[in-house]
C-alpha cells in the first residue's frame, strides 16, 4: 500500500484524526498525500494540532476542526489556524486535552458519553460549538461534564517501526495516539521502517500498539517530514520556520505538497 492508496481511502467530508503533537511525530507525508489527492470539506481532529492543520487549512480543504491545541510548540503560533479562526472561515470545536481523550475513550467503549470533572466551570463549556453538557451525578449529585464520544472516520499516526503483522512501535511521546486509534473507524500507520518482527527486548520508553488497532501500515521513511521523529531525526527547524512564514500562500503550499515530505 502507498501513501496515495491511503489518501484514496478517504472521502471528501470525512473526519480525519492526526497523531503526534505540535511539531513532533506528525504524519506529514500522509497529510501531503491527502492534499495531493484533492480531498476537501474535511473535519480535522487532533489533540495537539500542528503544521498538518496549517497545510490543509491553507489549501482550503477544511470545513471543521476539533482540537485542544494547535501550534508549533516553542516556535510560535500556527499561521493558517490563526487566520482561519480570526476570519471565521472554519468551524471550530475546542476541547481541553483531557476532555478530548475522554471523547476518544467514550468512542472506544462505544458509549454515547463519559463523565469527567475536567473542564468544569471554564469557558470551554460556553463556546457556540461546545459538545459538552453538565449533569448531576446520579450517585453523588455533584455536577459533572458529559463528554460525547468522538469517532473519527480515519485516524493516521506515524511510527518508528511496523512489523509484517501490523503491530507498531512508537519510540517517542505517544500523545493522544493510543485512545485516538481505538476511537476511530479506520486506522492507518505510516512507519519509518517495516520489519519482519518488532524487537522483543525493547526500551522501557517505547510503546507497542497492537495490530488490533491498526488496519493498514504504509512504509514512509522520513514520514514525519519537518516535524521531529525521536530518535531518528529532530525537527528540521529552518524548514519549519520557512513553512510557518510561507504557509499563508496557497501556491507555495501547492509546491510544498508536490515536493513530498
Amino acid at each position, binding site marked *: 500500500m502507498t501513501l496515495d492508496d491511503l489518501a484514496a481511502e478517504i472521502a471528501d467530508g470525512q473526519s480525519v484524526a492526526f497523531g503526534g503533537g505540535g511539531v*513532533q511525530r506528525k504524519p506529514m507525508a500522509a497529510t501531503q498525500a491527502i492534499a495531493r489527492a484533492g480531498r476537501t470539506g474535511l473535519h480535522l481532529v487532533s*489533540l*495537539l494540532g500542528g503544521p498538518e492543520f496549517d497545510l490543509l487549512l491553507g489549501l482550503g480543504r477544511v470545513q471543521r476542526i476539533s*482540537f*485542544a*491545541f*494547535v*501550534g508549533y510548540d*516553542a*516556535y510560535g*503560533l*500556527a499561521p493558517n*489556524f*490563526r487566520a482561519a*479562526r*480570526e476570519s*471565521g472561515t472554519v468551524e471550530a470545536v*475546542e*476541547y*481541553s*486535552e*483531557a*476532555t478530548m*481523550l475522554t471523547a476518544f*475513550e467514550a468512542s472506544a467503549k462505544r458509549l454515547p458519553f463519559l463523565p469527567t*470533572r*475536567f*473542564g*468544569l*466551570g*471554564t*469557558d*470551554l463549556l*460556553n*463556546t*457556540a460549538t461546545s459538545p459538552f453538557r453538565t449533569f448531576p451525578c446520579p450517585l453523588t449529585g455533584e455536577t459533572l461534564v458529559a463528554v460525547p464520544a468522538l469517532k473519527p472516520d480515519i485516524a493516521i499516526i506515524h511510527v518508528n517501526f511496523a512489523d509484517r503483522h501490523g503491530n507498531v512501535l*512508537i*519510540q*517517542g*511521546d*505517544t*500523545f*493522544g495516539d*493510543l*485512545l485516538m486509534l481505538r476511537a476511530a473507524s479506520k486506522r492507518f500507520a505510516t512507519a519509518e521502517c517495516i520489519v519482519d518482527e518488532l524487537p522483543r527486548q525493547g526500551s*522501557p*520508553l*517505547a*510503546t507497542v500498539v497492537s495490530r488490533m488497532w491498526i488496519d493498514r501500515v504504509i512504509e514512509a521513511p522520513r514520514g514525519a517530514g519537518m516535524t*521531529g521523529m*525521536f*530518535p531518528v531525526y*529532530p*525537527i528540521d*527547524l*529552518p524548514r519549519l*520556520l520557512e513553512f510557518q512564514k510561507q504557509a499563508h500562500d496557497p501556491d507555495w503550499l501547492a509546491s510544498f505538497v508536490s515536493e513530498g515530505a
Partner: protein
Amino acid sequence: MTHTLEELLIARMAREFRGNAMGVGATILSDLAARLAKALYVPDLLLCTASRAAADCDVHAKSVLDEWTLTRTARIALPWDELFQIIAQGRFQIFIGAVQVDRFGASNISVIGSWDRPKVQLVGARGVPDDLWGCERLCYHIRQHTKRSIVEKVDFVCSFGYGPGRDPRAAKPGLVVTDLGVFDFDADSGMRIVSLHPDVGFATLQERTGFTWPEPSGPIPLTPAPTAEELRVIRELIDPHGVRRLEANDGDVSALDLWRTAAANLREMS
C-alpha cells in the same frame, strides 16, 4: 554575585516545588526551575520535560532537543491517560505560561477577544481546564508583565480563580511570577504583591498592570537574589548552553542558533 533577571526567576520559582509529585514548567525558565528544585531541594521530584516518553529523568543540561538528552536517564514512558490520573489525584505541580492572568486568578491561553471571532487566536485551552481539577494550585510564569497580560478580567476562562460561586474543590490560583515581581491571591481582595524584583518600583508595577493596585501600606519586600549555589547549578549543570536567554526580554540568542548547535552535536553522537 551578580546575576541576570532570568537566573533570579529560575531560583524563585524553584522554591515552589514539593517532592514525591510531578513538577512541570511550561516555559523555559519554569522548566529550569523544576530542574533546579530537583538538583538542590526536592530530589524525588518527578520531572517530565519535553516528552512523556522521557519521564522521571535525572537532572540534565537543558537543550532545544531535550528528548534526546533526557532519554539517557528517563525511567518511564508516561501514557497520557495516566498523566491525567496523576493530575486528578493532586500529584501534579505546574507553572503555566499564561497569556492573561486576571485580578482574581483566572487564566487564559486560548483566544484574545471573543471566542466566536477572535481578535487573536492563540494555541487553544490545552490542558489548563484539566489542571484546574486536581492540582492543589496553579502557578504562572508570565514573561512580560503588561496591561495586556495582567488584566482585570480574562477574555476566555481556561481556568477560574477566586470569585462568587467558586467551586472550592478546584485548584486555587497560586503564585504568579513575572518580570516585575512575585504575586499571589487573597480569596476576597484578589492579587497581592509578594515581592518586587530589584529596581522595580510600585509606580512601574502600576503602569504595567491592567487594573488599579491598592496603595501599599508599607515597604514592599524585594525578591530574594539567587544563592551562589543556585547560580552555580543554573550555569554549570542545568543550563550551560544558555537556553534561558531565549526568554530574556533583551534576548541575544535565537532558537535557530541553539537548534543548529544541538543538531550538530546530535549528528556527532550518532
